[in-house]
């Protein structure tokens, strides 16, 4: 076991960012430096997967150093089965993103790579933080690199998109900040309590909050996370940001940033406020179902492939929301695996759209057609990823959606089959909009003579799609590799809520309000 392994993983990208800025000798030196750092980070992070012990209920790889003693804030990081998988997803996608930007980013290369690496540190930090203060620091830190990535390297409407992204996220997170402070303050009002931001302590403290205040806390956290997910009707920033972002930015945005929202819902809303979770589960599930259908319907009418993929994200993330708020082991497991799936499939779709755009400088569906004959390798990858996104059995999407639907079906919290009935239509719609788009782009006859000049994928492009496709198949065929790691954690989350549902074990504490 590598000592302090999580520290390395968290800070290596940051060191890499500094190294990139110092290595300004040539563009290639800069690219290689960034890539090497992100690859080393990924390799080390594999240790997390292999050494994570699902049988151990405590947080693992824990690091704790006092940071601001007077406020009881500490640098406290550690992983459970859920966050471990998401950290590995992050370290897996970052090198792929850096390789994908090898040719397509032409200006300000050192800045781009450095920002990507800072972003990686911040994303890992969000998943690994066990202190609300630290969590908030990383959560907000995400904004700055992403803001610049969209703003500097984005498309024509990049400024509108990036400012919208920033303001939407800020609105949610500032309210969350009040909730974070209030939680710490609440802990100090308990007998013998002190101000604390330690999440593991708050897990025990927060469920004793009087229900009316708990609802506000739940709302403040949920708003912030739902904006990030994004759940209908808070999703409007997403299509803008996705479409305007450079390919690498879109991949990270879809692959990891959206997961921070759903991760936050599990980590904070479910684990801190079990009573409110029970109360609002059906409302949030409805939002999920609406998102599934709305996202799918809007995707259907898109003319721009990238926009279509962006709206399909809204639909997919709706599934995850439904899985989480069914509060069953299957549903949550499905939600988690769907987070990974969405990161892989949608990430790959954005990469593929980016490759198309690099070649033709357009993403309009009507411009293409007949690509199967012209660039067969590209079309093959495109097909696998499309099918994975639809949820074809044998590929990853099926596993996630199936588990989510089963989970919601059995859910005692939701207690109605209508959620599943409506959500299932999303699966059908997904087949419609994805296949229809695929058919118009890849099959048929070319509608533009420009397409005849298209060249097939280079070795670099194949190299960055192959690992993703490998995992798409792996999860589809044998998801236990991943699910077995997270199952005990998920079980504990669900048990805690079921405990509350049965016997109100947490509400007996004294009233803390002065």
């Amino acid at each position, binding site marked *: 076991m590598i000592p302090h392994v999580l520290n390395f993983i968290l800070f290596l990208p940051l060191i890499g960012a500094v190294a990139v800025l110092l290595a300004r000798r040539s563009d290639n030196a800069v690219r290689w430096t960034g890539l090497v750092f992100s690859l080393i980070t990924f390799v080390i992070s594999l240790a997390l997967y292999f050494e994570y012990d699902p049988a151990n209920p405590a947080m693992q790889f824990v690091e704790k150093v006092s*940071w*601001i*003693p*007077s*406020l009881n804030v500490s640098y406290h990081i550690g992983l459970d089965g859920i966050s471990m998988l998401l950290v590995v997803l992050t370290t897996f996608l970052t090198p792929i993103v850096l390789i994908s930007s090898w040719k397509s980013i032409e200006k300000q290369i050192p800045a781009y790579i450095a920002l990507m690496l800072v972003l990686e540190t911040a994303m890992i930090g969000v998943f690994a933080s066990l202190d609300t*203060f630290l969590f*908030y*620091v990383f959560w*907000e*830190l995400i*904004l*700055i690199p992403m*803001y*610049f990535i969209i*703003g*500097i390297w984005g498309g024509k409407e*990049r*400024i509108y998109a*990036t*400012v919208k992204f*920033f*303001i939407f996220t*800020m*609105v949610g997170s*500032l*309210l969350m*900040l*009040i909730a974070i*402070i*209030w939680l*710490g*303050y609440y802990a*100090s009002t308990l007998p013998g309590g002190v*101000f604390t931001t330690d999440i593991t302590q708050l897990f025990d403290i927060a469920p004793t909050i009087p229900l009316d205040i708990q609802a506000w806390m739940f709302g403040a956290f949920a708003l912030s996370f739902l904006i990030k997910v994004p759940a209908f009707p808070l999703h409007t920033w997403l299509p803008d940001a996705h479409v305007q972002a450079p390919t690498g930015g879109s991949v990270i945005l879809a692959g990891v940033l959206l997961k921070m929202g759903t991760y936050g819902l599990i980590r904070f809303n479910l684990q801190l406020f079990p009573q409110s979770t029970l109360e609002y589960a059906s409302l949030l599930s409805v939002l999920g179902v609406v998102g599934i259908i709305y996202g799918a319907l809007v995707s259907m009418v898109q003319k721009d492939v990238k926009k279509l993929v962006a709206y399909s994200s809204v639909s997919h993330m709706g599934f995850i929301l439904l899985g989480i708020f069914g509060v069953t082991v299957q549903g949550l497991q499905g939600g988690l695996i769907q987070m990974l799936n969405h990161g892989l499939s949608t990430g790959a779709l954005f990469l593929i759209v980016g490759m198309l755009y690099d070649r033709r400088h357009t993403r309009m569906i009507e411009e293409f057609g007949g690509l199967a004959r012209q660039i067969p390798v590209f079309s093959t990858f495109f097909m696998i990823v499309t099918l994975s996104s639809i949820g074809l059995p044998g590929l990853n999407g099926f596993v996630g959606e199936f588990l989510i639907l089963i989970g919601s079906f059995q859910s005692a919290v939701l207690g109605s089959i209508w959620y599943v009935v409506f959500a299932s239509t999303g699966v059908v719609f997904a087949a419609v909009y994805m296949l229809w788009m695929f058919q118009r782009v890849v099959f048929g006859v070319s509608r533009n003579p420009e397409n005849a000049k298209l060249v097939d994928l280079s070795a670099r492009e194949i190299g960055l799609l192959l690992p993703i496709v490998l995992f798409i198949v792996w999860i589809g065929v044998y998801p236990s590799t991943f699910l077995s790691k997270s199952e005990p954690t998920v079980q504990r989350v669900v048990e805690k809520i079921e405990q509350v549902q049965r016997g109100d074990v947490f509400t007996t504490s004294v009233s803390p309000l*002065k």
Partner: protein
Amino acid sequence: MNQLLTDTLHTAPITGTIVLALVVIMINALKKDSLRMEYWVSLIGIAANIALAVWAFPLRGSAFAGTVMTGGFASLTAAIFLVAAGLTIILARDYIAKIGVNFGEVFHLILMAAVGMMTFAAGTDLVVTFVGLELMSVCLYVLAGISRRVLKANEASLKYFLLGAFATGFFLYGIALIYGMTGTTNILAIAQNIAAYKSEPLFLVGAGLLFVGFAFKVGAVPFHMWVPDVYEGSPTIVSAFMSTGAKAAAFSALLLVFTATFDFSHSSMNTVFAVLAVASMIVGNVVAIAQTNVKRMLAYSSIAHAGYMLIGITAGGDVSLAGVLFYLIAYVFTNLGAFGVTSIIENAEQQGTDLENFRGLYYRRPLLAVLMGVFMFSLVGIPPLAGFFGKYYIFMAAIESGYTWLTIVGVITSMISVYYYLRVVVLMFFQTAEEGEAPKVTASGTFALLVSAAGILLVGLFPSIVLGWMGGLF
């Protein structure tokens, strides 16, 4: 005699800076072309005085017959003003040459203003507080109009003087009423019977007028009218010093009188503070959106930040005191930096501080743009920059005192502020450069900005350094 010596020694940063200021003006009078020498003497002297402030920190007590505090709070605030003065002088060196007012008096006036600030914040007798306030203000009136051929600067100076005099009137009248009620001007003596005075209308009116005087100086709504015009019209480094040093001094004195000494918690005074806080946050942040001039935008932003600090004053108590002081430290670094960048962008005619002049700055002067970005993000309150922790601490103090609604107003107005701070970043980074000359960057200016940015990062990442001092203030 012995007592006098001890008192002089224990109030070292104040007395030391007086000596320094006198030395600088003597050099100016006796030696030709002495600007360079005055500059270095000022800087070395300031460094020495900061060291003296650190040395005096444990000497908590009072001096000169209980009229001035020593050590603790006085030392910490003195160090803040001296840092502000030092950075201002470094920025001023090339700036005053650029705009053609390269007189040694500028350094002298900055130093004397710093003496005023220190006295203002350390005075435990309202008369001493008042003397400090006036010394600071008079120096700043002159500095505001130092480029005497520029019409805007004259206007700023006159406006500042007239409204400042007006505020002084309130302040003095407040002191008079308090004296009439209590028979003393020593705030520590008053504090002993504050419970009885608190219900006396005459005392409340006196304290209220005193507060109006403070509110003028911190630029809180509705006493903020002078702020935009004065910050815009004054030479930029003077605006920088006013918005950091003078504001910090006014807040420090306000903290000393209203938070540390007079206990107004759960009284009608608190409602007054809260109303001003809300009004300042809303007016400052909303009106800033409409500005096209960066100096004017920063002026409204400073009104808004006064509102955030007033949340801390409203909440009261030790946590708030520490919170506001922390906020001040963060704000001094941040705003000096922001005005500093603006002073470098500015041209010799004291124009070119519009938002438009920041367009594409990253592609002409990358370092300058990155630094300005840091200052803007710190003003927004993005972690891990100092501005974030300042807000966190003040919000925490307010929630602990039961003012959760004030923090909600605070975060909602912060969301509004995101828009105009980001606009600067958008222009600098996301818009391409226009034709024209890149602003001239000098080593000393860059140094001052780097120090500010380093301060923001250091204080933001390791707030316990600063919080460690807060335990031993009184």
